[in-house]
C-alpha cells in the first residue's frame, strides 16, 4: 500500500490548479491515494458553470508567463480539470469541498462540478489525511 497524499487547494488560478492536477495524476499513476480538499478560490474554480473559464494566473506569471501558458494550451496541453478527470479514472482520487468555504461562497453541492465527490469539514480532512503528507497549493 502506497502512502496517501493530501492536497489542500487554496488558490484558484489556472497555473496553480494545473500544477496540482499534474501532481495528482502522477501520484495516482504510482498508486498513491490522493485526497484533495478545496478551499476558498480553488473551490470557486470548481463551480460547474465556471470550471472551463479562464481563472487567470498567479501574479508572478506576468505577460511573458501568460504567453507561455497560452502557447502550451494552444499546443494541446490538457486543461487541469481534464487532467484531474483522467487521474480519477486512473487511481484513487477523492475531491472534497471545504464546508466553511462553501458557506463563504454561498454555494451548495449542486453548484459544483461532478469532479467534486462531496463536502467535508476540516476535521474530516485531517482524519482522511491521517499520517500522510500534506501539500498546500
Amino acid at each position, binding site marked *: 500500500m502506497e502512502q496517501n497524499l493530501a492536497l489542500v487547494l487554496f488558490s484558484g488560478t489556472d497555473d496553480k490548479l494545473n500544477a496540482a492536477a*499534474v501532481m495528482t495524476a*502522477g501520484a495516482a*499513476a*504510482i498508486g498513491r491515494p490522493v485526497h484533495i480538499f478545496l478551499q476558498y478560490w480553488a473551490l470557486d474554480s470548481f463551480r460547474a458553470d465556471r470550471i472551463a473559464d479562464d481563472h487567470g494566473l498567479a501574479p508572478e506569471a506576468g505577460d511573458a508567463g501568460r504567453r507561455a501558458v497560452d502557447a502550451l494550451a494552444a499546443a*494541446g496541453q*490538457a486543461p487541469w480539470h481534464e*487532467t484531474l478527470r483522467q*487521474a480519477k*479514472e*486512473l487511481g484513487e482520487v477523492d475531491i472534497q469541498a471545504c464546508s466553511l468555504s462553501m458557506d463563504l461562497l454561498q454555494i451548495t453541492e449542486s453548484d459544483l462540478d461532478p469532479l467534486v465527490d462531496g463536502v467535508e469539514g476540516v476535521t474530516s480532512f485531517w482524519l482522511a489525511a491521517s499520517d500522510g503528507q500534506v501539500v498546500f497549493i
Partner: protein
Amino acid sequence: MQTQTTPITRTVDARGSYCPGPLMELIRSIREGQVGDVIAVWSSDAGSKLDIPKWIEKAGHRLIGIETREGYDEILVEKLR
C-alpha cells in the same frame, strides 16, 4: 534490433500530449490489455521519456526498449501482470 522484431499488440499515439498525459494513456491501455501484450507508446514529451520507464519498473512490467523517431519516442512495454 529487438524493437523492430517485437510484435506490437497496440500502439498508443500520445504525441502532442504533455506530462503526465502519455503515462496516463499507457496505464489505461495496459489495464485494458492482456498479460503478454506489447504496447508501443508514441510520445513527443521529454518528461514522459524519463518517467514512463520508471513507472514500468515500479508497476512490474517490462521495458522492451525506447526508439527515437522523427520528433517523438517510441517506448515499447510488455504487460507482465
